[in-house]
């Protein structure tokens, strides 16, 4: 069923009896050409692009729970492409371009809102770094704008500009950044993939791989054995856990990141604002809640919940940035599990096992990458060659010294 304004009017006049399920609930086939493990944003996007762009058939997405129940439903919904390094910037810009055309591509309202992202500057050194980053973005053909304090004040007068310790001296803005309704991304990709013949198998957890003579033949699941020509794993957060079943160790630690939503407020925050003197970022959802977050907790965890010291730290960041946030009540908080990689950048690559492909290591920046990650992974699965924007995302970069370390922190994942 194609969605349109006309359809909404027609259904409104006929009692909304004509709406059908957005995707089927098929039973597993004994074999597929391509199996994607993980029915999150990245896995569903991969299936969509495999079927629609790369013309592949007989594809299945295997999800241990329900689709969109992982990190695509647990993030703070921000999209942007303000990276510094050559290995990253073209990829994230490709992703932002896909976001800009996503709703037409999927025929689904994902509420893509390019309301702008502002990274605040609090010192001369930060202004130098922001200038360099902005120039790097513009060299890659991406929009970047350096704002002075007066310009920031015009757009966000509620910030604590004259804070004695962290005065706001300007910002690096990307106007094309913004937010997207995150659940709709999973649902839109799922619906489109299903329309193109992809089987989405929920409550189907992979419990093991069948590997013979260095080649992956299929997966053991809670719904039986399924054979596959190629297997792609896109389960960021649980990557080490799943790939260990194939005998692989990854350059990844799993960490918990917390996020927060306040009660609904009238429109107050124009876009996405990040605090430069601490780790705090905030935007306002269309329902009015302030959506914000900060640092990861810093220790390995698969628990999907964090601890109170980080809650305190995030709230301190919020109070230092915009003291009025102290009057808002916290409505919800939750934790998601991040694949923290050894250099803070992702991996989209073949594995040493023939027919087994890997997509993960997204740290806490995976949501914005969803479309490009799916596209690049589909490219790799369909053509056995990396997509031109994802060439740097290889496993062997840690062996050859070609790390993509935006923050320059080295191999300590909780610092990225």
């Amino acid at each position, binding site marked *: 069923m194609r969605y349109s304004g006309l359809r909404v009017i027609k259904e409104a006049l006929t009692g909304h009896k004509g709406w059908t399920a957005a995707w089927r609930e098929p039973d597993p086939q004994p074999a597929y050409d391509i199996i994607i493990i993980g029915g999150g944003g990245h896995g569903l996007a991969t299936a969509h692009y495999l079927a629609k762009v790369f013309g592949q058939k007989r594809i299945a997405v295997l999800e241990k729970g329900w689709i969109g129940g992982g990190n695509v439903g647990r993030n703070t919904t921000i999209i942007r492409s303000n990276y510094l390094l050559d290995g990253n910037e073209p990829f994230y810009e490709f992703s932002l371009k896909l976001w800009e055309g996503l709703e037409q591509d999927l025929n689904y309202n994902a509420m893509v809102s390019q309301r702008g992202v502002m990274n605040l500057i609090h010192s001369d050194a930060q202004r130098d770094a922001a200038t360099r980053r902005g120039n790097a973005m513009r060299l890659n053909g991406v929009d970047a704008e350096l704002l002075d304090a007066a310009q920031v004040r015009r757009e966000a007068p509620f910030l604590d500009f004259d804070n004695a310790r962290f005065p706001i001296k300007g910002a690096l803005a990307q106007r094309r950044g913004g937010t997207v309704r995150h659940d709709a991304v999973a649902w839109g990709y799922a619906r489109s993939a299903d329309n193109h013949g992809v089987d989405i198998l929920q409550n189907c957890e992979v419990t093991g791989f069948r590997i013979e003579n260095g080649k992956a033949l299929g997966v053991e699941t809670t719904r039986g054995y399924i054979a596959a020509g190629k297997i792609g794993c896109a389960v960021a957060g649980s990557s080490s856990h799943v790939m260990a079943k194939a005998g692989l160790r990854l*350059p990844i630690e799993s960490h918990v990141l917390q996020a927060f939503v306040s009660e609904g407020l009238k429109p107050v925050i124009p876009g996405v604002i990040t605090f430069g003197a601490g780790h705090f970022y905030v935007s306002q959802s269309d329902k009015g809640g302030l959506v914000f977050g900060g640092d990861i907790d810093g220790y390995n965890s698969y*628990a999907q919940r964090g601890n109170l010291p980080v809650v305190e730290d995030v709230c301190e960041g919020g109070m230092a940035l915009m003291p009025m946030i102290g009057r808002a009540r916290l409505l919800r908080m939750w934790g998601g599990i991040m694949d923290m990689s050894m250099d803070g950048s992702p991996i989209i690559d073949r594995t040493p096992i023939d027919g087994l492909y890997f997509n993960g290591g997204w740290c806490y920046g995976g949501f914005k990458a969803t479309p490009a990650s799916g596209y690049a992974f589909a490219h790799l699965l369909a053509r056995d060659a990396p997509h031109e924007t994802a060439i740097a995302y290889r496993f062997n970069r840690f062996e050859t010294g070609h790390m993509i370390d935006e923050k320059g922190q080295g191999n*300590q994942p*909780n610092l990225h």
Partner: protein
Amino acid sequence: MIIDHPLLGPRDSAEFTYMGDASLLLRPAPDASDADWHAYAYLRDNPAGATRELWWHEGGDRSWLVVTRNTLTHEITDVEMARDVAKAVQA
């Protein structure tokens, strides 16, 4: 989380900094192969369940501890001085 420091008793985990998997104590020999060093520096087991890891008491006595902790529940079942663990490994 409360870490029961062998010398100082129960302390808030916020006083500590997480420093990675306890396997980092098993440093390869200087002339070990590139593959061994790559595995040591970059690859991790990262299990969902019990794991042994290094915590540094940065906001306390600055000792290093080996903490056995469950990554699914955050339950801590054992705390040792990293010094003792390292000596036992070398012995």
